[in-house]
């Protein structure tokens, strides 16, 4: 397993930081912003303002370290737990919140943001990244597609079809598995008899690497060459980022039924954000004032995003019908009229 930045903020022996201080500060700011969003998401759900919410606490470095290896026009195809990566690649917090309030417009990020709405069904989306990468290549563009998924998703048949296509056609895809140790209640060891998830790449004929997923530098050090190689025609890579889901699966879950709270406590020591702060502080590149300023601005951004999402009028009855096809079918028109007549009566 590749490890560079240790929990105490020091670099592992013989390891070099893949980013300079300024780059590191930028990514650190993103980690802090992501956590502010995530904490807000959980709090809003408890107030009944969001539908179920899936926290990514503990997985920020895995997501942002990987997404930082993308270029602006590259594709990102991820899941309900990957808001940090999606946001980093341009998907506004507002849309992410809006989706969670239960509004389809959350799935409509601004033009130019090459991020699909989060996949809620486990496993189906990885092959979409394969198709995107393939489509880009057929259109002579050098865009890469990155897809994110959990350890559980590797058990779905579609994962294997996606890996196989990517290998057969040597497509510019980066598969980023966040092995957060659980798929709802199922521990990683019962998900697959493979010793690592990274080794699954062997079977499909391309490289797989395992990295400390709570280590921003390690994740980035794996993702950067993977995207570069993909872009230059070298084919796909599978990266297994070993991390831990600090929160329940979603706000509807009770982890007390399947894991020991001591285990979760122990992972607090491995927090992905604290170690970057320690690292920057040790280099005289960060201090409490900067931290306070960063936290205030992150909180403000998150507040503005939820306010904008909640200010939108919900979709009306007529709009329920109007985005099924480019043009409504006669049947849909009849149904829409029937609903409007009923509401007017």
């Amino acid at each position, binding site marked *: 397993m590749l490890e560079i930045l240790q929990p105490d903020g020091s670099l592992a022996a013989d390891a070099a930081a893949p980013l300079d201080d300024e780059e590191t500060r930028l990514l650190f700011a993103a980690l802090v912003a992501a956590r502010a969003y995530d904490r807000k998401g959980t709090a809003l759900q408890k107030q009944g303002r969001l*539908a*179920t919410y899936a926290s990514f606490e503990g997985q920020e470095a895995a997501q942002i370290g990987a997404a930082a290896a993308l270029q602006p026009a590259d594709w990102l195809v991820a899941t*309900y737990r990957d808001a940090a990566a999606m946001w980093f690649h341009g998907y506004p917090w507002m849309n992410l919140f809006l*989706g969670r*309030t*239960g*509004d*389809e417009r959350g799935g409509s990020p601004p033009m130019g943001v090459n991020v699909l709405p989060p996949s*809620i*069904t*486990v*496993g*189906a989306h990885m092959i979409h990244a394969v198709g995107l990468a393939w489509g880009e290549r057929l259109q002579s563009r050098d865009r890469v597609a990155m897809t994110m998924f959990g350890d*559980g*998703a590797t*058990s*779905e*048949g*579609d994962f294997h079809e996606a890996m196989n296509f990517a290998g057969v056609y040597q497509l510019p895809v980066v598969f980023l598995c966040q092995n957060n140790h659980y*798929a*709802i*209640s*199922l521990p990683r060891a*019962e*998900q*697959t008899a493979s010793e690592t998830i990274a080794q699954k790449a062997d079977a499909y004929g391309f490289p797989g690497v395992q990295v400390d997923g709570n280590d921003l530098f390690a994740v980035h050090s794996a993702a950067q060459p993977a995207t570069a190689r993909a872009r230059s025609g070298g084919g796909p890579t599978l990266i297994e980022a070993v991390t831990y889901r600090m929160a329940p699966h979603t706000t*509807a*879950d*009770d982890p007390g*039924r*399947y894991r020991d709270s001591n285990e979760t406590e122990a992972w607090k020591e491995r927090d992905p954000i604290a170690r970057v702060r320690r690292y920057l502080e040790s280099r005289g590149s960060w201090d409490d004032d900067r931290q306070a300023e960063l936290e205030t601005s992150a909180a403000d951004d998150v507040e503005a995003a939820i306010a904008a999402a909640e200010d939108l009028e*919900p*979709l*009306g*009855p007529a*709009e*329920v*019908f109007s985005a*099924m096809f480019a043009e409504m*079918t006669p*049947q*849909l028109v009849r*149904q829409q009229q029937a*609903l409007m007549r*009923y509401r007017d*009566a």
Partner: protein
Amino acid sequence: MPEVNMAQALNLTLDHVLSTHTDTVILGEDVGRTGGVFRVTDGLQAKHGSERVVDTPVAESGIVGAAFGMAISGLRPIAEIQFLGFFYPAYDQVVSHVSRIRHRSRHRFTAPLVIRIPYGAGIGAAEHHSESTEALFAHTPGLKVVVPSDPADAAGLLLTAVEDPDPVIFLEPIRSYRRLQGEVASPPEPVPFGQAARRRQGSDVTLVAYGAMVPDALEAAEALAEDGHEADVIDLRTLVPLDLDTVLESVTRTGRAVIVQEGHRTCGFAAELAASIQEEALYSLQAPVQRVTGWDTVVPLRRAEHHYVPSADRIAAAARHALKGG
């Protein structure tokens, strides 16, 4: 007899069959340690062991395909799919294999398995958690399709499903898991397939519903009674086999039928019933058969979901329309 909700009724029935039918095995995602996301299998792994209540990897095609093999080998697997919206990876297994094995082997191989699946909208859940696509199953030859509406039926129909010699799709209305309380016999008593239940007696209009829509149809019947119209409310309980006789007997008396279905309108189960009613009882009808259904749209997310799900009020409006002659 104790009053329990539907989730508890299912739980005690599963506990009962695991105790009395040693050939049963429960398998699915998170059914063991957590007892399922709706706690329907709560406590069963602790009591019956992890060989018989199995937490599987996240793989629906695997769960159903493996259950199929187990069934052929001589067991009675009870598979759980977490939500109907996550069933589709297993659809090929069901359509191409589970539903056909008896026919293609002329009874030589059979698949007595039950697939339990929570379905339906109305709780403002996330995308894919609100599906009501029972028509896909009813349209697939070789599957029995069960949709209970209350705790006692859930228990009794599940017991029958486990003992049935053929594959059964057992759809559990999410909205009803904890909405209704009812008495359930201990041990549960089987409720036969293919026998609809009359939930309310009336002679002016027939309301036909199943699953999560039954409480709403009954509420609509209350509203109609306030206007002086008595509705006959039929709960189908099983779509396959279908108790058409009970529906026809009622419609022949009332002359008016309103069919309620939460699923999408086109090719939904209500269309099948409306066609059957006109084939067999057209000359008894005093108004066109009415359908109250979900729309041909994706189920809207939480903020607009109420525009989709049939309500008691929409059902009553359709009944009043029929009472006026359509």
